[in-house]
């Protein structure tokens, strides 16, 4: 943590610690939930979030006010990608291939869809598998929206995509989940 003294010469350790407690710590639970879905398990999420928070502490002078949670999420997201590239290179999915799919197929497929009552009864294991199977860009949008309660604008700024793309990714993610539930439960 004391490695980047050159870049943080302007802030005292005391100020950095205070900023860290006020900017980063309140969003630790959210960051953990997010990282758990991105990495797939709590142990890796703990490593990733710790790493991300220490990066946030080192770069706390780059926090320029505004949405602290979105700022932390960007760091957690980048840290996760670095971590995944290092530890599980095969799980990385290129987003380029997906944009076409997201744009062309935002609608629910024509195959028989499950009734709302059936969806309501989907259990944890089924939902977990279905979410884990989503392509990463769809999954992260869904997780930030459903489990972190982030707004479209926040998601757009974290992922650095237009709000319209957030909507189409969410539409696609949800359609895929509903399809999968229909397939597994019928």
């Amino acid at each position, binding site marked *: 943590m004391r490695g980047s003294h050159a870049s943080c010469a302007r802030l005292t350790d005391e100020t950095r610690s205070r900023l860290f407690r006020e900017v980063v710590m309140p969003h630790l639970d959210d960051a953990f939930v997010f990282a758990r879905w991105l990495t797939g398990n709590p142990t890796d999420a703990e490593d990733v979030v710790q790493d991300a928070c220490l990066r946030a502490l080192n770069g706390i002078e780059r926090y320029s006010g505004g949405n602290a949670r979105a700022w932390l999420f960007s760091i957690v997201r980048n840290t996760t990608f670095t971590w995944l590239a290092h530890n599980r290179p095969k799980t990385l999915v290129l987003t380029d291939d997906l944009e076409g799919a997201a744009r062309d197929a935002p609608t*629910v497929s024509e195959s028989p869809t499950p009734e709302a009552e059936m969806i309501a009864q989907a*259990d944890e294991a089924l939902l977990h598998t279905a979410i884990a199977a989503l392509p990463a860009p769809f999954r992260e949008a869904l997780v930030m929206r459903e*489990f972190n309660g982030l707004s479209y604008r926040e998601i757009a700024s974290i992922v650095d995509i237009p709000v319209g793309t957030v909507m189409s990714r969410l539409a696609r993610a949800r359609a895929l989940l509903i399809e999968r539930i229909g397939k597994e439960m019928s």
Partner: protein
Amino acid sequence: MSDAPLDPHLTLQAALDGELDAAGQAAFERQLAADPALAATYARHLALRRALQAQFPRTSAPAALHARLQAAVSPTIAEPAHAPRRDFMKMAAALALGIGLGGSATYLALQRGTPGLDDALIANHRRALLAGSPVDIASNDRHNVRPWFDARIAISPPTPDLAAQGFPLLGGRVDVVNGAPAPVLVYRIGAHVVSVTALPGTVASRPTVADAGFHILSWRHAGFTFLMTTDAEEQELVRFAETFKAAVTGAPAP
């Protein structure tokens, strides 16, 4: 989003996520009423939302992670630049106060004690004030607060009812102090709040700390060290501390 009509399935997402303005929402509701297929899709999305929320309740980050990060920013070694200042006027004032209090386990001196601990206590108190609610469990009933601590961290400090003396209990929260979770009782002092952190065991003898408008007073009793942190005036804190001690020890209130 009123320039071009949006794909109804995208509008549906926005409606589901509360991202439509009132006019957009009203228009979508008209669409829903007129289009049974859209209504069925919307019902499926609502069911999915409910299933996700039911199956994945909100979780917290592990306490160990929380503690490690707290420790990462809690300076444990006093920086030379902040070496204890000895201001004899303040010392004398504190000494007079100390004599006034007379409690043998009350140490008063306006000098910095353990910087790491003081900073952590003040930071915790400040953060609680900033957080909208200074408590994790809001209750003016000590019979709610003690079991809550017991269930969460298996420590339940004495929690006196001081409402009659003008210090209503606001509730409790759990802070991380010295890398371990610690119960914090929160009382109101006039327009201010006092955080009473109860550390099991005894902390090294500590003076009263005055730092940037915050005061910390410590008291040892019944296996706990009570560290009272507040942004209220020092006299107010002393009055609260005396009331708190009297209630815990069963002595008549001052």
